[in-house]
Structures are given as structure tokens and as C-alpha cells.
């Protein structure tokens, strides 16, 4: 294939593969905490960061990292307070983020629609060599943190009170996760765009967990699915001339559907094969509660 004779295609592929690997490694913790949509929310806030960057003639990516990290920490602090109004507070933050971004981008000198679209839906092929360096360094940091702290992060996501009684620095690790989420969102902004960022964190995990039995195997399978769909997304989108971010997400969803259909078919086949299973007697001598 001669597509990869072009440097920009190689850069696009490298960027996509790094994100494809890093995003699910973080996403699995978000899914376990039932915060699947948080990446989407942080993506909205990151757009304000892009606006700030364009307005101040600074790097939009760096500004987006800073603003979305502040947003993610804010979300985490709201979550820790555990009020029912948290849900509403998150909604306000998200809409504030995207509205602020659109207004700020409009105020900047660089206010073409194309510019906005580039951040909302990704623009992998315009990724510069410097961008790849930033994506590479941050991606490796995210991946390293998520893998190195896996036992502690798993404990917190699985049972936060138990983790506190174990003396783990729960608050610090929660903030680490929030900042990592912001960093992942911002670097993935170039690949899939802010509106589809969450998909790369969540869809590979959702696909993997249908067939896995443990947390570690789910994480590994999700990373393989993320890596595979990001890589093939770039190639397929170049072949059929579609947006690489959306193509990647569609491919990841296709994996999800294929695994769902596969497991249902497998269960049906197995049920037909085995005789009626014995049902355990309901010998529940319950303590009075």
C-alpha cells in the first residue's frame, strides 16, 4: 500500500495507535465507576480551552490540557461531595464548556468554521511532527500511570470505602484519574475529535467485557480492540475517504456488535448441546435483617 509513503499518513497512524491504546486503559476505570460519559463532558470543557488558546495565540492543545484538567478536577470535587445536585452541576459545566468554546473561537482571529470542526471531529492528517511528540509523551504517561497503579485504581473503583480503610490516598488517586482523563481527552482531540473522544475510552471496554472474566483480561482485551480499531480506522478512512475519527468509532462499535452477536450465538449453541442444568435448591436460611 503506498498510502504510507506520505509522512502525514505515518504521523496520523502513529497518533491514532497511541490514543487507541491509552484511551481504553483509562476508560475501563471510568466504566467501572459508572462515569462512562465523563470523558464526553471533559471534551466539552476542553473546547473552551481551545478557544482560550486561539484567542491568546498560544497552542490550543496546551490550553485545552490546562482548561480541561481544571474542569475534570472540578467534576471530581463535585462527585466527592456526593450531592444529588452533582448531576445538574455536571450538566452546567458541560454546556458552559462547549458554549464558552464556540464563543471564544468566534472571537479569535482564527474563527473559521473549519477550525471549529477540526477540534470537534478531529483532523488527524493535519497532525504536525510536534503534535506527535506531544501525543506520544502524554500517551505514554497516561498508559504508564494506568498500568502501574492498576491494583490501587481497581480497589478504589471497585469499593471506595474499602480503599479508604486500607489507607490508600484515595483523594489523590481520584484527582490523578481526573487529570489523566483530561490529558487523554485533549490528545485524543486530534484523532477522533472532542465529540467522539468518549467513544474510544468506553466502546472498547464495553466490547471486551462481554467475553472476559476478570479486570486484567478486560483491560488487555479493550486495549487490543482500541489499538486495532484506531489503526484500521486510519487505513480504512484513507481508502474510502471518510473522517478517520468517526471511522475508528464505527469500527469499534462494529467489534462490539460482532462480539455481542457472537456470545449470544455461542450461548444458544451451548444451551442446545447440554441437557437441562440442575438448579440448586433454595436453601437460604436467612438471618433476620
Amino acid at each position, binding site marked *: 500500500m503506498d498510502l504510507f509513503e506520505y509522512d502525514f499518513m505515518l504521523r496520523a497512524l502513529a497518533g491514532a495507535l497511541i490514543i487507541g491504546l491509552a484511551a481504553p486503559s483509562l476508560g475501563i476505570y471510568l466504566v467501572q465507576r459508572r462515569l462512562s460519559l465523563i470523558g464526553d463532558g471533559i471534551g466539552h470543557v476542553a473546547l473552551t480551552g481551545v478557544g482560550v488558546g486561539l484567542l491568546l495565540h498560544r497552542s490550543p492543545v496546551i490550553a485545552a490540557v490546562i482548561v480541561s484538567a481544571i474542569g475534570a478536577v472540578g467534576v471530581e470535587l463535585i462527585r466527592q461531595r456526593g450531592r444529588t445536585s452533582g448531576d445538574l452541576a455536571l450538566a452546567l459545566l458541560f454546556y458552559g464548556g462547549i458554549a464558552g468554546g464556540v464563543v471564544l473561537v468566534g472571537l479569535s482571529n482564527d474563527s473559521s468554521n473549519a477550525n471549529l470542526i477540526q477540534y470537534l471531529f478531529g483532523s488527524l492528517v493535519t497532525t504536525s511532527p510536534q503534535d506527535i511528540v506531544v501525543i506520544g509523551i502524554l500517551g505514554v504517561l497516561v498508559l504508564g500511570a494506568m498500568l502501574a497503579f492498576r491494583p490501587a485504581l481497581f480497589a478504589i473503583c471497585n469499593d471506595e470505602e474499602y480503599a479508604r480503610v486500607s489507607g490508600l490516598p484515595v483523594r489523590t488517586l481520584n484527582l490523578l484519574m481526573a487529570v489523566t482523563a483530561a490529558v487523554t481527552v485533549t490528545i485524543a482531540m486530534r484523532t477522533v475529535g472532542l465529540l467522539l473522544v468518549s467513544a474510544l475510552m468506553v466502546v472498547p471496554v464495553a466490547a471486551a467485557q462481554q467475553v472476559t472474566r476478570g479486570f486484567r483480561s478486560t483491560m488487555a482485551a479493550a486495549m487490543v480492540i482500541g489499538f486495532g480499531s484506531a489503526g484500521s480506522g486510519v487505513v480504512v478512512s484513507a481508502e474510502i475517504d471518510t473522517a478517520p475519527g468517526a471511522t475508528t468509532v464505527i469500527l469499534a462499535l462494529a467489534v462490539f456488535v460482532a462480539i455481542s452477536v457472537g456470545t449470544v450465538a455461542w450461548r444458544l449453541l451451548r444451551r442446545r448441546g447440554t441437557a437441562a442444568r440442575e438448579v440448586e435448591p433454595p436453601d437460604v436460611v436467612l*438471618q433476620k435483617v
Partner: protein
Amino acid sequence: MSVVNVSHLAVGYEGREVLHDVTLSVHPGEVVAILGANGSGKSTLIRTVLGLVPIGRGEIELFGTGLRRFKQWARVGYVPQRLGAGGGVPATVGEVVASGRLARRGIFRPPGAADRAAVRAALSDVGLLDRINDPVSTLSGGQQQRTLIARALAGKPDLLVLDEPTAGVDASSQEAFAAALGRFETDGGTILLVAHELGPLQPLIDRAVVVHDGRIAYEGPVPEPAGHHAAPGHDHVHPHADTVKAGICEWAPTDPMPAG
């Protein structure tokens, strides 16, 4: 030196005081049961001892150190009422129990051979070693509860704190549970547990503390149960207990209706 020392503790939620002037000590090697009706404040008492609920007034010491300065959490094993639901990401029994090693190992060191051995030992202690690679969601409620005690035991604590460990647990799991606690006590461990009823745990209990309306109403040998629970042959079959315990029970009277 006491393992747990609570003096003149008062705890409130949003202005309403739940515990008033509670004083209690647990000595090394002792097994103390905190009994009381739902809503009496017994769970709040142990949750405060564990630092999960802020102290209103009074003092708590663990192993002679004030709770605010206490750092040796590896010496404490906590068994909550039930396994957190999680977000649907599968986890194996072995992975859940391995969390029990974190207090001892810290967050920076990767798990080693000693950790894996401790996880296996704790699982065989509760009779679930053959399920180590199964997803916890495939276990029965009683087996999940045994997984939680294995998680606490894996850290090799000196003190076990259990919150209603046998509520809604089937008979065979209750016995496996009692046996594991018995071995822990024989090895010199201290146990503080909250229970509504003791069941097979009763022979282990050295001292019972009854909390009523946020105060300690009784301290001494395990008291005789009141009402129909005292009837001979009463085996506590409450077929609908699972639905009741979901939340309504927090305010339900102690003895809602005669059995049958």
C-alpha cells in the same frame, strides 16, 4: 493497651445526632459483638471507628494512636456488608481479594509472590480457592460475603471489623464464615462486629454491646433474644429478607411480624 478505644463519642449527620456519649474498648484477642435494632446507630459506630464517618465529639484510638494520626491501616481488616456493585466490568474473585494486600504493600510496589500466596491462603481459609478465577458476579450472596472476608484476611490484619457479615447469607456460608473467624481468633486476632443476630457466630463472642437509640444500653455476655426469636427451633427463615434489606429495613421495627 486497647485495640480499639472509643471515649465519649458523639456523631451526627446533618445536625441530627446519631450517637451520644459512647464509650467502649476492645482488648487484644477479644471478640466483641455490637448488637442493636436497625437505626440504633451500631453501624455508624463502627464506620466512625474506621474513619468513614467524621467524629463529632469525643476521641477514638486504634492500637493506642488517635484516629486522625493513625497510619497502620494494614493492621485493620474491614468487611463491609456487601460487595459494591461496580459498573459491570468483570473482576475475578482473586482480583477482589488481592485488593486486601494493598494496605500492606502500598500503591507503588507491584504484587509479588508473597501477595499471591496470601490471596490463595485467605481464599482457602473461607473455602473458595477453587473459585479464584471465576467472576465474582457468578457467586452467590454468601460466597461473595466470604470473598470479602478473604479480602480482609489477605492483608493479615490484627483487627477485623465486620459490618453485619451474615445478613442474608445462606447457612453453609455462615458456617464457613464462623469457622474462618474462629481460626482468626485462635491465632490471636481481635474482632469487632456489628450484627442484628449472631447465628453460628454466637459461640465466638466474648462480649456483647447493645446499642439502643445512640447509646450503649447493655454490655456483657450475649443477651437472650426477645420475642419469637427465643422460641426453640426458630431457624430464622425469612424468605423475603432479601427484598426487605434493600433499604426499608433501616427504619423497620425490630420485630415486624411473627414468623409464618
